[in-house]
């Protein structure tokens, strides 16, 4: 078994390379994805090895990236589109929501758009405005799209390949603040036997409070769980991984044991993923709940200036504060 220590970014790069090797119809499109290798170097070296017909530097227009990728998909290609930053996806929003998401439906199943839209998302890197947003709710709300996000190098390596292999259009959110974090990656395990793309995973078992999270907040919640354990509280942390569709089988089972649930995400709370999670848990676990489902999220402000983002973003202390409050009912 070839297990290597890779950063999350390098794991994505390696997964993309595998996909390009395995299927000649897979292409990568985006701004600066070629010679530069992307502003985060996620496509580093790929144009050099696969050519500029497979790794395409596009003009600087996001709607054009997605719209032309639709046409390429209709012709049988499997485009992977890179949107450079979360806050730059909105010019492509119409193509994503009205075209990519609906093409299969409108065509009565005759056309598929096997597209992956990669978006580095979330804050925590001290960036200027439009570079730290968490737009997942917009996409998760859209029928016809699937939305996934990875939280560690192993998942990054496997999930990007699974997303590319899927015929569904998938928004693939990459936690940019975690790009440089390292982990063990099994490079040889066959994709067909991998953990399913749209399944959540319990990343730390516990008995007292269920913590539901995803993407960049998984690590934050694991750190909170470690701290809570020192105080004698065992948090069960679930990495949702798939935001649409949601896989809440493990969450329901967990909450029925713990009676308490906290949802943690960077995106603002209003009408966000946390609201959906709270509603569904309430529907399915009503008689088990000892407290309302609480949310720890970014605030309902535009993403603030970088020097205050640490206060904006959920952190270990805010997670533990919410955990404490679930015992206050």
């Amino acid at each position, binding site marked *: 078994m070839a297990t290597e220590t890779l950063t999350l970014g390098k794991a994505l790069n390696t997964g993309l390379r595998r996909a390009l090797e395995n299927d000649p119809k897979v*292409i990568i499109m985006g701004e600066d994805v070629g010679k530069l290798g992307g502003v985060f170097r996620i496509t580093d070296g790929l144009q050099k090895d696969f050519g500029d*017909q497979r790794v395409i530097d*596009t*003009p600087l*227009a996001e*709607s*054009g990236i*997605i*719209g*032309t*990728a*639709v*046409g*390429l*998909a*209709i*012709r*049988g*290609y499997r485009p992977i589109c890179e949107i450079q930053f979360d806050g730059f996806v909105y*010019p492509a929003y*119409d*193509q994503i929501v*009205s*075209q990519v998401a609906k*093409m*299969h*439906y*409108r*065509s*009565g*199943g*005759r*056309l*598929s758009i*096997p597209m992956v839209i990669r978006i580095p998302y979330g804050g925590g890197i001290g960036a200027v405005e439009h570079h730290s947003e968490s737009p997942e709710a917009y996409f998760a709300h859209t*029928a*016809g799209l*699937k939305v996934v996000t990875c939280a560690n190098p192993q998942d990054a390596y496997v999930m990007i390949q699974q997303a590319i292999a*899927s*015929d*569904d259009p998938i928004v693939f959110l990459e936690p940019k603040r975690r790009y440089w974090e390292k982990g063990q990656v099994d490079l040889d395990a066959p994709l067909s036997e991998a953990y399913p793309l*749209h399944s959540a995973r319990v990343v730390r078992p516990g008995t007292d409070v269920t913590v539901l999270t995803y993407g960049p907040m998984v690590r934050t919640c694991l750190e909170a769980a470690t701290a809570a354990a020192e105080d004698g509280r065992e948090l069960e942390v679930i990495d949702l991984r798939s935001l*649409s*569709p*949601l*896989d809440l089988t493990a969450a329901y089972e967990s909450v029925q044991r713990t009676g308490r649930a906290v949802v943690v995400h960077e995106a603002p709370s209003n009408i966000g993923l946390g609201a959906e999670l709270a509603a569904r848990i309430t529907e399915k676990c009503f008689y088990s709940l000892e407290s309302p489902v609480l949310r720890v999220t970014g605030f309902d402000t535009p993403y603030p200036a970088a020097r205050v983002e640490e206060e904006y973003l959920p952190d270990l202390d805010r997670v533990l504060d919410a955990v404490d409050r679930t015992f206050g009912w």
Partner: protein
Amino acid sequence: MAKGDPGGTTRSRRAAPRSKKGATGDPELVQLLTPDGERIESHTSPDGTEYRVDFTDEEYRGLYRDLVLVRKLDAEATALQRQGELGLWASLLGQEAAQVGSGRALRTQDMAFPTYREHGVLYCRGIDPIMPLGLFRGVDQGGWDPNEFKFNMYTIVIGAQTLHATGYAMGITMDGKTGTDDGEAAIAYFGDGATSQGDVNEAFVWASVFNAPLVFFCQNNQYAISEPLERQTRVPLYQRAAGFGFPGVRVDGNDVLASYAVTRTALDNARHGQGPSLIEAYTYRMGAHTTSDDPTRYRIASEVEAWQAKDPITRVKAFLEKQQIADADFFAEVDEQARRESVHLRERVLDMPNPEPVTMFDHVYPNGSPLLDEQRAQFTRYMESFEGSAH
């Protein structure tokens, strides 16, 4: 066309000696058949491109038949909407020549990306004309197979399809399907209003820098619902192409012969690897934007009358009569065919069943979704709860 390849065009730096300007006197408007039915042998554009067609009598009659049929079927659809059988209809009235001319210029392997008004092109692609009526009746979302007929689904979001066409054309190049006579090309249809859209301008950029084998076919019908052309542009639309680095040409969109010639030339240039071009088919929307629109609120009758005199079908009929290519029996037979087909269309529309409600859950995802499975099951149980009740 019935057979063969009648649309011979040549690209030449020399002005063709026998060519003459169109009756409009506008050297920038390609015209091969005047509104009076006078045939212009060829047209040489300022860039030296010569446009001509060389149809057989049978092919001329075929074009006339196409024009009459698509107008009649379109009128039937408008009538069906007025009688409550369709939710909406976007009539092509007045634009038949631009659509039949360009539609017949497509070769089998070429791929078209329509708006929601290209019923004439759809007809030329061999798609059953009832197909779009399902969409406008609200019983389905379209219905034809885009890859089988090389004609994508209708696109209602203005201009979005021009990017799809551009990507598809990039794929043609990537597949190595250009550079020969049997190479492939794509064509993107859109209107004058769409030229203001970001997507259309992005498509121009993309097609240009990737040298995509693509024809941008803009039917300038003078109005974007109520807004006249002056609200979209201060330069003639075909001239915009120059700024993006590819040729643009304006054709009399009410002239089926010229529309055919310029489209065939542009497609052949594209399939031979010469990149994109823009055609502005100068025409007029004789009817309303859709059946929900009232054009008397924003345009005057005299303007409509002036365009009535440039009718795309009248001039072909005049030409066929003058040249004795067709006789009264032929015209009567075409009218009878059109009547028959429109009655048939009507009967079939009225017979279109409503879909089973539960089918709304189908085809959201190629791989399905547990959320939808759950909702479908809940909905089915809910519907079944009414069985045996008075409702």
